[in-house]
């Protein structure tokens, strides 16, 4: 379809909408925002007739590349260190994608603009595409990569693993609560416009550097749809900005969304890129450098800040604090250390860092070795089963962290930890912004204004409470993270494929698992204060354990 005729076609399909007269619409999905009927246009002029054929062509290319990878046996060159993290990433990501599809009717009910509704319909089916094309990618890995265990239990493991839950809020945030908060600000304005850059642009380059060109093929095809979704989000945001009553809510939702997604997405993608790679060229970008380019320069400075002229209250401090955590406070490194500590209850393998890795980290993050090097040496020496326990249960000096009630990533930057008695229990938060998210943003009113549509935090938010007092072997059996011989664990603290070097259930028996939050709530006030003061003071890794 020629461009000129698409313009005409798009104009024509605007005739499809009408104002119902037999019923008065009673929306299922509500918002506290006030949106007036707006004249926001869809500059992409989307019509189904050009859309489907274009997407079909994109698919041909993706599936052609998959065939090429299978025939050329790409897996001869993929790095196991990288591929193992895909067991986590590719079990998380299809859910946010499908949730984005499910989120669209929240906006068709909240946004009085049929032209935007049309754009949302394309976004809905794009997101279905993304979810299943990613499930398919994972299926290819499972069939062709040396170790399929972990891929094979993928959706189950995603649902019962503590890291899956952290990722799941990324999707659940799109589909619950205030329609504009969830689907416009959290999903379109922040997740799709800001974070898909690091997710779907920065990450594929790292995949390629690790011999995997299928992930880039699939994810760059996914990313090519994102401009449509950013466009939908921009139109709706401008409608919200047109009404002064919305300004406080936009600010609230930006703080929540930007901070939460920094905490969650940077934790995951930062770890995949920094600790999942074998490519240690000194001139390749670190995650911090990628973040600076894709998030700080391209999103924050080029997209968000210019919207201030329309009255957007950009929470600059949130962005700067995110950078401070990544650059000065070692956020990603602390997350990777925590993941590696928790290897027995994951469902993928975490490769020890080598001297070459140490050199690269020190080059990119001066001072890294002093903070993390010795602990990774302990991890490496404890990686093969040799009469000792998993590293979390050996005396390395590492203190197993409290979980953040809001973002559910643990409180890893110890000095920033906040403790508070909220809704009848002692809770911990990784940062003041996460404390604010629970105690201020997700409440029935904001700055004295009722917010009856705002979502609610629910569920068993601290995974460890599910298994407090359990034997570690029983936890692993309960989770289903045991290989088909009934004893060898799916997770391993290495990527060696020699069965004799793999950890088995019998090495886990007799180790008691505990929940920091349960223990915190059992303490006297005095004990709790003392405990938290020590926790915030941090820990020292023993030179030997």
């Amino acid at each position, binding site marked *: 379809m020629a461009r000129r005729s698409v313009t005409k076609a798009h104009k024509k399909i605007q005739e499809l909408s*009408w104002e119902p007269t037999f019923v008065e619409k009673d929306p299922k999905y509500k918002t506290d925002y006030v949106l007036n009927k707006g004249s926001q246009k869809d500059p992409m002029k989307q019509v189904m007739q050009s859309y489907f054929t274009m997407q079909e062509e994109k698919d041909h290319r993706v599936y052609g590349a998959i065939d090429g990878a299978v025939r050329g046996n790409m897996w001869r060159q993929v790095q196991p260190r990288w591929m193992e993290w895909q067991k986590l990433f590719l079990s998380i990501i299809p859910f946010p994608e499908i949730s984005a599809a499910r989120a669209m009717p929240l906006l068709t009910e909240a946004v009085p603009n049929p032209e935007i509704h049309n754009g949302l*319909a394309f976004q809905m089916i794009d997101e279905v595409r993304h979810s299943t094309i990613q499930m398919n990618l994972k299926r290819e890995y499972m069939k062709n990569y040396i170790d399929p265990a972990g891929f094979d239990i993928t959706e189950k493991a995603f649902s*019962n693993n503590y890291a899956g839950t952290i990722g799941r809020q990324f999707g659940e945030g799109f589909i619950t609560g205030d329609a504009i908060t969830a689907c416009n600000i959290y999903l379109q304005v922040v997740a799709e416009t800001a974070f898909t850059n690091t997710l779907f642009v920065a990450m594929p380059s790292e995949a390629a550097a690790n011999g995997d060109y299928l992930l880039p093929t699939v994810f760059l095809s996914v990313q090519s749809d994102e401009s449509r979704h950013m466009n939908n989000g921009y139109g709706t945001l401008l409608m919200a900005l047109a009404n002064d009553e919305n300004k406080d809510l936009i600010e609230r939702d930006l703080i929540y969304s930007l901070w939460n997604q920094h905490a969650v997405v940077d934790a995951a993608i930062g770890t995949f890129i920094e600790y999942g790679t074998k490519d240690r060229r000194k001139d390749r970008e670190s995650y911090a450098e990628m973040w600076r380019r894709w998030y700080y320069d391209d999103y924050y400075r080029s997209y968000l800040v210019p919207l201030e002229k329309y009255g957007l209250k950009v929470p600059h401090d949130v962005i700067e604090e995110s950078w401070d955590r990544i650059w000065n406070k070692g956020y990603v490194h602390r997350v990777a250390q925590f993941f590696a500590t928790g290897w027995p209850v994951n469902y993928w393998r975490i490769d020890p860092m080598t001297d070459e890795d140490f050199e690269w980290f020190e080059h990119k993050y001066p001072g890294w070795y002093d903070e993390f090097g010795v602990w990774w040496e302990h991890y490496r020496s404890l990686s093969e089963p040799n009469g000792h326990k998993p590293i979390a249960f050996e005396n390395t000096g590492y203190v197993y962290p409290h979980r953040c009630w809001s973002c559910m990533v643990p409180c890893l930057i110890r000095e920033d930890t906040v403790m508070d008695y909220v809704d009848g229990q002692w809770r911990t938060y990784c940062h003041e912004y996460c404390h604010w998210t629970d105690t201020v943003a997700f409440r029935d009113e904001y700055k004295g204004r009722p917010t009856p549509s705002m979502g609610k935090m*629910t569920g068993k*938010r601290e995974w460890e409470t599910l298994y407090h007092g359990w034997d570690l072997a029983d936890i692993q059996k309960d989770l289903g993270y045991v290989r088909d011989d009934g004893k060898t664990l799916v997770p391993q603290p290495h990527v060696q494929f*020699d069965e004799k070097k793999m950890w088995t259930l019998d090495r886990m028996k007799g180790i008691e698992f505990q929940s920091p939050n349960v223990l915190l709530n059992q303490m006297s006030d005095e004990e709790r204060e003392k405990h938290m003061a020590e926790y915030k003071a941090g820990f020292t890794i023993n030179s030997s354990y």
Partner: protein
Amino acid sequence: MTEEKAITEGVGRGERSLPPIRLTDAEAGAAVFAGSNSRKYNYFEPKGRRASHYEDVTVDVQPDPEKYLTQGWILGWPNGDLGYDPKWTKIKSSNWHEFRDPNEEWEKTFYINNSNSIRQIQQSIEDAKSENIFEDWSRDWLNILARHVSTWSHADHGLGMYVFMPAQRAAMSNMLNNAIAVNCMHKLRTAQDILLYNLELTEIFGEDVFDGAAHKDTWMNDPSWQGVRENVERIMNEKDWAETVFAANIVFEPLVGELFRSQFVMRFAAPNGDFLTPSIIGVSEREFNDRDLRYSKEMYRVMGADEVHGEANRELMQEWLAKWTPYSVAAAKGLEPLWSEPETKPAAASFETAYERVQTRFEGILSDLELRMPQEVTA
């Protein structure tokens, strides 16, 4: 063997840092160890002996507290509803994950299928234009195309955007939502197919002969169409996702959609010199018959056959029939004047005959679902 050098000197590209390709031999079968041969998703029971590709990429992508989701939904609604809440429909299920789409639609297939539909329509129009078949079309038929055939696009659009799109949010498993999302796109694409066909006809005949905007007034004001519009708007305003899909695909489409598409457009066009419109409207008719009705029947069959709640579910569907059938019967009967409008009519083209045909078909669908025919249909 000599070491190969990168080709950089001749073109002056200079030093470049490229990620090295290192052979790792990390391919399937390179080593044998526990779990090294576990090469299928093992967290669900396939419907057949082996999981289909469709099942692999759709089953359990949306988690469920009933199945593995140990921490439960972590964000919810102010009234306490969960991310996906069973309260959002009166239907009850002892296993929301049982349903499989008999069409096995997933990403790759729905792009191929919809693109083929688009190509079929575009090709039909191009062929017609190259042969200039439009000279044979009667003026009164053109008027019917402008006022009535184009008007159906609103019904498709309303159902697609405001019935199937919300239903794909609310349904209780990814397999249900997935099938409904595909249905949503069929409707929205068909609505646009019809209006873009309208645009073609406006350009071919000129606005003085073919009033491309007449459908808007017809939809809002023509008495023949008010029953259809009321029916669509009422489904749009319902919140129970299983009820809305039922009202749309089990009641409205067989009684009203097929009456209009199969019994009117596809039969009356040819005697008026128009062989083109049936091939366009036939695409959506085929999609409903072959795909959307097919998955819907399976979905409600599973609900009606639930070992715990089946009987109560069938009674509930019977109540839905009692609620929605009168609107669809009124919508269908409201269209009766259309049968008198064309000057040239096919043999056996009375409205009564047409209605009898859809009535019989409706009866067959209900019988497959073990539901009783409401008396409004035969009255």
